[in-house]
């Protein structure tokens, strides 16, 4: 079953990002939302994507730009809150890491 992991807090302040990555299985995707957008250049996320190039990582563009956060590697996909609904239905279930 494919799971959508929604990360809503900074991985520099707590360990939910690491915890989420521990629970990651193939076919899962990650969505960075709210303060989760501070992770757009987080080493752990970049490393996870290097290890599994098919891993899709999305972020809410509006939330990232509001926080002056840019995904310098440009390997994460910008998305909108409206498209999150589609994203949710493309997965079997979701988990919110806040």
């Amino acid at each position, binding site marked *: *079953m494919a799971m959508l992991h929604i990360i809503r807090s900074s991985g520099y302040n707590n360990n*939910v990002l690491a*915890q989420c990555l*521990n629970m990651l*299985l193939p076919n899962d995707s990650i969505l960075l939302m709210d303060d989760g957008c501070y992770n757009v250049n987080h080493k752990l996320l970049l490393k996870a994507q290097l290890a599994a190039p098919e891993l899709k990582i999305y972020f809410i563009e509006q939330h990232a730009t509001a926080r002056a956060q840019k995904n310098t590697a440009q390997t994460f996909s910008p998305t909108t809150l409206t498209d999150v609904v589609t994203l949710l239905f493309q997965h079997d279930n979701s*988990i919110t890491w806040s």
Partner: protein
Amino acid sequence: MSEAIPNNITDNMTSNRTVAILNTEAPFSSATGKESLDTALIFGSYEQAISLFFIGDGVFQVIGDQNATEIEIKDYLKTFSALGFYDIENIYVCRESLTERNLPENFHISNIQVLSNKDFSQRLHQHNVIFRF
């Protein structure tokens, strides 16, 4: 009451959808652990199939020999023993989280299954709805 609700809606409400509760916080510094347990018992009282997962600091909720009254906190951990009455029997603990914290497999509730990180994750993925506390 079921007569008033169309079948397709009642189908969604019955227990073939499984619910998982993922616990990630230690028991006493916040009310999170108690709220999570209350949620589990509410689901249980509606006969909703539910599983409990403990990972990270969440494993501190289930270790044995704790004494909340000593620090003048109401001991909600005792309520865990009610899980059996609500047929909540799927309780999983992450082995890596225990090892990381140098904890033995000594728990204050029975029925606990200690799973490796991968098995734990796979079991979690099998649920339709996941609440994280």
